[in-house]
Structures are given as structure tokens and as C-alpha cells.
């Protein structure tokens, strides 16, 4: 008596036949993407590059803000009693 052993190859052949029987064959237009995805991907990559890798703009502080900072520093020096009150509200 000869025992026929099933190999992995037999299984895959059987599976292939079953799939071919039950799935409709692909048409040519199904094999291609309906639209080109690369332009969208490139656009997203460019946006992320601009967002993440753009050199930071050098910080320009207008003269008005320098004046305000000087005024605040002078007030802190002249009226040190306000420092605890300021810390309390920070």
C-alpha cells in the first residue's frame, strides 16, 4: 500500500486552482492606478519639508519692544516691592 503524502507544493497548487476558479480574472484597467499618486505624495513631502526644515527666521525685535523691556527693567529696579506681586501672578 502506497501512502501518498501531501506536500506544501500540492497545497499551493490546489489553492491556486481554487482561487482561479472563484475569483474573476483581472482586466487590464484594474492593474493600473486610476490616478497618479506621486504628485500628491510629493506635495505633502514638500509641505512637511517647508514646515520642518525651513530655516528659522531671525528674531527681529522692534524698537518699541526694546523700549518696553527697558521700562519694565527700570520699574523692577526702582520698585523692587512689585517683584513678589508679579511672581504671584505668574
Amino acid at each position, binding site marked *: 500500500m502506497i501512502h501518498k503524502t501531501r506536500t506544501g507544493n500540492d497545497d499551493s497548487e490546489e489553492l491556486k486552482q481554487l482561487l482561479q476558479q472563484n475569483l474573476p480574472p483581472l482586466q487590464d484597467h484594474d492593474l493600473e492606478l486610476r490616478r497618479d499618486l506621486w504628485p500628491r505624495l510629493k506635495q505633502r513631502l514638500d509641505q512637511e519639508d517647508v514646515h520642518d526644515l525651513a530655516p528659522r527666521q531671525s528674531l527681529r525685535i522692534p524698537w518699541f519692544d526694546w523700549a518696553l*523691556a527697558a521700562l519694565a527693567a527700570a520699574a*523692577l529696579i526702582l*520698585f523692587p516691592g512689585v517683584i513678589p506681586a*508679579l*511672581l*504671584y*501672578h*505668574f
Partner: protein
Amino acid sequence: MKQHPYLRAYMAGIVVPTIVLLFGLTSFTVARYVYNVPLPIERLIVFPMSVVPNLWGVWNILFVASRSRTHLSLGVHGMLLPLILVPLGLLLLRALDFPIPYAAAILPVGVPLALIVYYLVWKYVVASLNQILGLA
């Protein structure tokens, strides 16, 4: 990074007061326990520890939510916060029955100073944090 803008705004908003609290609390604690300055810190600390950072976070959320309508700059928006915080802080001090030394002398200088400091901090520090978190 486009999701949860309000959560990011809250996180960016609480950074500055949380860091300042560290230094403020250290100063007050050293003054109280090292130099024996009679400051009831345990009664005072609830405001800068809980109310202020949360209000900063909420204020930044308000900025993100309303900037398309109000068109206010972040500096001006932040400058308005002491107008809420100062009365709130004074109200709490009064509720805690804490005497405010030299209040009449401090307020005329302290309020404009707070407006200036808040304007500069929000314009430069919070704006920078917002930019880092993709909110600018």
C-alpha cells in the same frame, strides 16, 4: 501635526508659568524657611500653582480658537490676561484674609508692569512655543 490643536495650545500655554513657578516657589520657600520671613506660603501658593498655569493654557486655547475672528496679535491677547488675573489674585488674597502690604503703592506700578511683561512674554515666548507645536 494637525490634530488636537486645543490640547497643543493648552500645553504651550502652561509652559511659562510652570517654569516661573519653580523659581518663585523656591524663592518664597527660601525666604520663609531659611530667612524666616513671615510669609504664609501655604495659603498663598494655591493661586500661582493651580489657577495661573491653567488660565494661561485656557487663554492660549482661546487665542487659537478666536484668532480668525478677532485678528488680535498674540502679544495683545496675552496682555489682556492680567486684567483677569490681578483682580482674581486680589480677590483670593482677600478671601484668605491675607494682608497686602503697600497695596496702594504696588498697584499703580504693578499693573502696568504686569501688562508689559505679559505682552513681551506672550509675543516672544508663547508665540515661539506655539510655532514649535505647529500652531503658528
